[in-house]
């Protein structure tokens, strides 16, 4: 069985909102569209988005970190939003695990949005049907595109490659390896929804350098010891400071 998903690397996301705009751009023109905004240039603009990037501050000044957090439907493996839908408009595809809404069946009762703990679903004010991330289902199977382009719009747009896309049930896929080897985790695991999308945590790159690695022990230029040994904080141009 296949379960397509996104893996989002919080270590590299810079919060540039490129995925937000490219998602909106693709999907307003794609099969999920239009995604019309209300009052777009007014004081209180609002509209449907499948993907939002939020920002959190972790820690206490001055020891804080800014974490940008992209958020969209997680295509849960056990999606609580699906069984509650009275019309069957919300469904999870067997073949690839994508959770979708059939806009022709949806009655706009909003019940599925109540049943999603992540707030991933948004009612389209103009069309009055429930919308959410489709993992660009109208893109990833489009054979008129080059292989490289058959990825969700957000993945293509991300300038830092913070978004990976693939089958998390295939242990050899890049997403599975990232989850396994970089500590990928699901959101709100306490509800048993088993989100397919995973997040990679912040990581600090730390290198342990041992003292004997700081100077070349076998440097042939140093053997005559004619010049004084430079202090550790002085420049060490071997030819000049040979000691």
């Amino acid at each position, binding site marked *: 069985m296949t379960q397509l998903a996104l893996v989002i690397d919080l270590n590299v996301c810079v919060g540039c*909102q490129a995925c*937000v705009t490219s998602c909106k751009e693709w999907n307003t023109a794609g099969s999920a569209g239009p995604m019309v905004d209300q009052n777009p240039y007014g004081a*209180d*603009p*609002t*509209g*449907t*988005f499948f993907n*939002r*990037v*939020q*920002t*959190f*501050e*972790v*820690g*206490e000044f001055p020891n804080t970190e*800014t*974490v940008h*957090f992209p*958020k969209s439907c997680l295509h849960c493996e056990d999606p*609580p939003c*699906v*069984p*509650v*839908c*009275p*019309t*069957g*408009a919300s469904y999870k595809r067997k073949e690839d695990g994508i959770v979708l809404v059939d806009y022709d*069946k*949806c*009655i*706009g*009762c*909003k*019940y599925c*949005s*109540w*049943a*999603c*703990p*992540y*707030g991933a*679903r*948004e*009612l389209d004010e103009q*069309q*009055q*049907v429930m919308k959410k991330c489709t993992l660009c289902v109208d893109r990833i199977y489009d054979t008129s595109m080059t292989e490289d382009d058959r990825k969700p719009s957000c993945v293509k747009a991300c300038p830092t490659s913070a978004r990976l896309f693939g089958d998390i049930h295939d242990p050899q896929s890049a997403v599975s390896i990232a989850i396994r080897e970089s500590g990928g*985790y*699901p*959101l*709100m*695991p*306490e*509800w048993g929804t088993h989100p397919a999308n995973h*997040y990679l*945590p*912040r990581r600090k790159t730390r290198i342990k350098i041992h003292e004997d690695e700081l100077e070349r022990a076998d440097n042939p230029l140093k053997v005559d010891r004619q010049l004084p040994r430079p202090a550790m904080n002085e420049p060490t141009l071997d030819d000049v400071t040979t000691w």
Partner: protein
Amino acid sequence: MHPAFSVILLTTLIGAAQGLFLALFTAQSYAAFKLLPQPDAHAFYGQGSLLALVLLVAGLGASFFHLGHPERAWRSAAMWRTSWLSREVIVLPAFMGVVFLYGLAHWLNWHPVLTTLPGELPVDPTAILGVAGTLFAFALFICTAMIYACLKFLSEWHSPLTVINYILLGGASGFTLAAAFASVTAPELVSFLAGWAAIITLLGWIGRSASLYRNARLKPKSSLQTAIGIKHPRIVQKTQGFMGGSFNTREFFHGQPVAVLRAVKWFFVLAVFPLPLLLLLSGMQGRTGLLVAAFAVQYAGLLAERWFFFAQANHPQNLYYQSIA
């Protein structure tokens, strides 16, 4: 959650209608066993069913305002295997049909004896329809309440108390209405119905107090830490990703200050329980004005109760929508 007026009206109106029907058939059963005098069937059961039907139609009408696409509402009967909302959509019209037939049979005085139970008890169509209606009324209470109680993320709702309270509060308002209605059409039944209305109101008081007590002590299962998966005691949202509103900020927040919430709570606690109880007990002798007032006060209280029911429920998605900047 944002309390939607359509849903508040739907649940309170059909709740009262279900309670009213249960009251009618309770009276009929007691009368069949000669524990109560026989009222004028045409007026009490016939017109009483009509009144229940009017409430049901009004509730159903209100529910359509909740839908983005009311013209597609028929589709919502499809997923009854998994969805309580779908089940409600099926049971509600079925119940309306039974109430209609029950009322019609009484209205036309259609009482052919179909069979007799031991003890010379005649069984006519109204008895069979009454039993069916009773089953449907309870099924409908369960469906309506389970729509809320089955959502495990909303811990304020995820409790058997939700189901119990929907039954008790609907029953209380229905029996109160039946008592007021009987004071006009069947005065000999008033004290019986008002007595039951008082008992159910009292039980409802206990049930709702229990859920208020429970909800005041709930500990949310989700936190900002589990929501974004970062284990640090101090996390603050700096921006939710947009500056205007969104569906997420409109649908899941009631947007009222705590003082309003508290005021609504005290209003409903008074208006649903002690005030109607006083009015019921003083109207017991058949004083229509007092009994109508009892129902009016209780129904107004129930509107507030339902508003509070929604407003109090705190959705975990709100963790993601804390800050605009």
